C-alpha cells in the first residue's frame, strides 16, 4: 500500500520496517536465468541455463572461476556479477600472494556480503542486482553459499536461483539429504536434472547450459560443451522420466542410470513415477 512512497531511496525505511530498494534488487535476481549449485563433502557443482538474446548472439557468461578452489554462478544483472567476480578474484589472489595459501571460501563470502551491505546503506549507491552462488573449498571440505543483494549470505547443501528456480529447488529438496555422500558423477547428474527442471519441458542440450565442477584434488573447471552433451546423453536426461537415485560406478553404467539397479539408497522417492510437470 505504501510502497510507492518509501521505495525511491535505499536509505528510506518503510513504516513496516522494510527497505524496498533492497527487495526490488532481489526481484532482479529472480528475473535472471536460472543458476543451480549443489555440494557433497568433497565436490561442488555449479550449473546454469544460458539463454542467448537471439539466435545471432552468443550467450552471457554466468559462471566464473574465482580461483582454483572457488567458483561462482550468478543470476540477475550480469554486469554487476562481473564486477563482483573481479573483486572476488582480486581478494583471492591477494591472499594467495601474501599467505601462499588459498583464501578460505567462508571468509570470501563474508567479505562479499559486507561489500553488498555497504550498498544498502549509502544514499548515493544502489544495491547489486545479482545473486551469487559461491562454491568453494575450505579446510573443512566443500561449501556452497548464496550471497544476496541484501548483504545476507547463507550456506546450502543445494540451491537454485533465477527464473523458474522453484522447479529445481523442489527437485533438490527431495534429494539433498543424499548429496553429502554423492560421487562426483552423481552430483553432476543431479545438477543436470535440476537444470532440466527449470526448462519447463524444453529439451536439455549442452548449448543452453553450462556446468562447472570443483573438488578436493580437482581445481575449478567449466566443463566443455562436448563433455556436457556426453553426460546428458549418458544419463539419458533428454526429456526422460526421472531416474532412481542409486547409480553405481559411472564406468560400469554404460547405458546410463536408467536401469533400476539393486541397492537403491533412497526409501520413498525412488519409486515416484513422473517428474515435475509445472
Amino acid at each position, binding site marked *: 500500500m505504501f510502497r510507492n512512497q518509501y521505495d525511491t531511496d535505499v536509505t528510506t525505511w518503510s513504516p513496516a520496517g522494510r527497505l524496498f530498494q533492497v527487495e526490488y534488487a532481489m526481484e532482479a535476481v529472480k528475473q535472471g536465468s536460472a543458476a543451480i549449485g549443489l555440494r557433497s563433502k568433497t565436490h561442488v557443482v555449479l550449473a546454469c541455463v544460458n539463454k542467448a538474446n537471439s539466435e545471432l548472439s552468443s550467450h552471457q557468461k554466468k559462471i566464473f572461476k574465482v580461483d582454483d578452489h572457488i567458483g561462482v554462478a550468478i543470476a540477475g544483472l550480469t554486469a554487476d556479477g562481473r564486477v563482483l567476480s573481479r573483486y572476488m578474484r582480486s581478494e583471492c589472489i591477494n591472499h594467495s*600472494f*601474501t*599467505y*601462499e*595459501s588459498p583464501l*578460505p571460501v*567462508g*571468509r570470501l563470502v*563474508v567479505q562479499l556480503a559486507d561489500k553488498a551491505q555497504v550498498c544498502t546503506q549509502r544514499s548515493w549507491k544502489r544495491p547489486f542486482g545479482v545473486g551469487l552462488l559461491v562454491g568453494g573449498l*575450505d*579446510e*573443512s571440505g566443500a561449501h556452497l553459499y548464496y550471497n544476496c543483494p541484501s548483504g545476507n549470505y547463507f550456506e546450502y547443501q543445494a540451491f537454485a536461483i533465477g527464473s523458474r528456480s522453484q522447479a529445481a529447488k523442489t527437485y533438490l529438496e527431495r534429494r539433498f539429504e543424499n548429496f553429502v555422500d554423492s560421487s562426483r558423477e552423481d552430483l553432476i547428474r543431479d545438477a543436470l536434472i535440476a537444470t532440466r527442471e527449470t526448462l519447463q519441458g524444453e529439451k536439455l542440450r549442452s548449448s543452453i547450459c553450462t556446468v562447472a565442477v570443483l573438488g578436493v584434488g580437482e581445481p575449478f573447471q567449466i566443463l566443455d560443451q562436448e563433455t556436457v552433451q556426453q553426460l546428458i546423453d549418458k544419463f539419458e536426461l533428454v526429456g526422460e522420466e526421472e531416474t532412481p537415485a542409486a547409480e553405481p560406478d559411472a564406468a560400469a553404467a554404460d547405458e546410463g542410470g536408467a536401469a533400476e539397479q539393486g541397492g537403491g539408497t533412497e526409501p520413498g522417492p525412488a519409486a515416484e513415477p513422473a517428474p515435475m510437470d509445472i
Partner: protein
Amino acid sequence: MDSNQAKQHNLLGSEAASERTLYPYVTGSSVVAIKYKDGILMAADMGGSYGSTLRYKSVERVKPIGKHSILGASGEISDFQEILRSLDELILYDNMWDDGNSLGPKEVHSYLTRMMYNRRNKFNPLWNSLILGGVKNGQKYLGMVSMIGVNFEDNHVATGFGNHLARPILRDEWHENLSFEDGVKLLEKCMRVLLYRDRSAVNKLQIAKITEEGVTISQPYALKTFWGFAAFENPTVGAEGSW
C-alpha cells in the same frame, strides 16, 4: 644535535630528516631449529648484546605465534618486538573471523616474507633473521626469512653464526624421525659449539618444542662446558714477550 643542525639548514621546510634503520643496536645471536618426529625443536640463547657487551641476559628470543607456530629471531631485538606486535595483530584478526580456519605456519612464514621484503625495498629493513616453525594438520613446517626477504624451507635451519657452526653438524647428524630426546641432544650439541666459538653467545638457553598438541618453551638452563684441555694449562709458557 647533528640532525637538528641538518634540519635548520634544510631549505625545503616541510621535509623531515630521513629516518631508517642503519645499524642494529641490541642484538640476539644465533637461533637453531630442526624438524623431529612430532614437530619442530628450536633453540636460542637468552643473550642481548649491545655491541660487544653482553648486556642483557634474559631476552626471550623464541615466542609462540597463534596455535600452530613458533618464531625465533636473531638480530635487532626491538625489531623482533615490533614483528611480534604485528603478528599479534594478524593472529587477532584471524581469530576474530571465528570460522574454524586458522593461519598455519606456512601462511605466517609467507606473511613475514612479504613484510621483510617490503621493508627492505624501502631501504628501512627490520634487522632480523627469523625462523618460523610449526605443525598444522600433521604437516611439519620449518622456514627462515632474512632481513632482505630471502626465504626458504628446510628440515633444519639456523641464523647467523649458526649457519656456519651448527648447520654442518646438522647436515651430518640430522635424520627423519628424530625422537624428542635425540633432537634435544643434537640441538644442545650445536648450541655448545656456538657457546664455545661465538663471542656473542651466553650460557643460558631455552629450547622450544611445537607439536600438534601445542607449544612448550623450556625454562632457561645452562649447558655443561669443559675447559680442562692440556693446552689451556700454563697458557703463557712459550709465549715470549707476551704481557
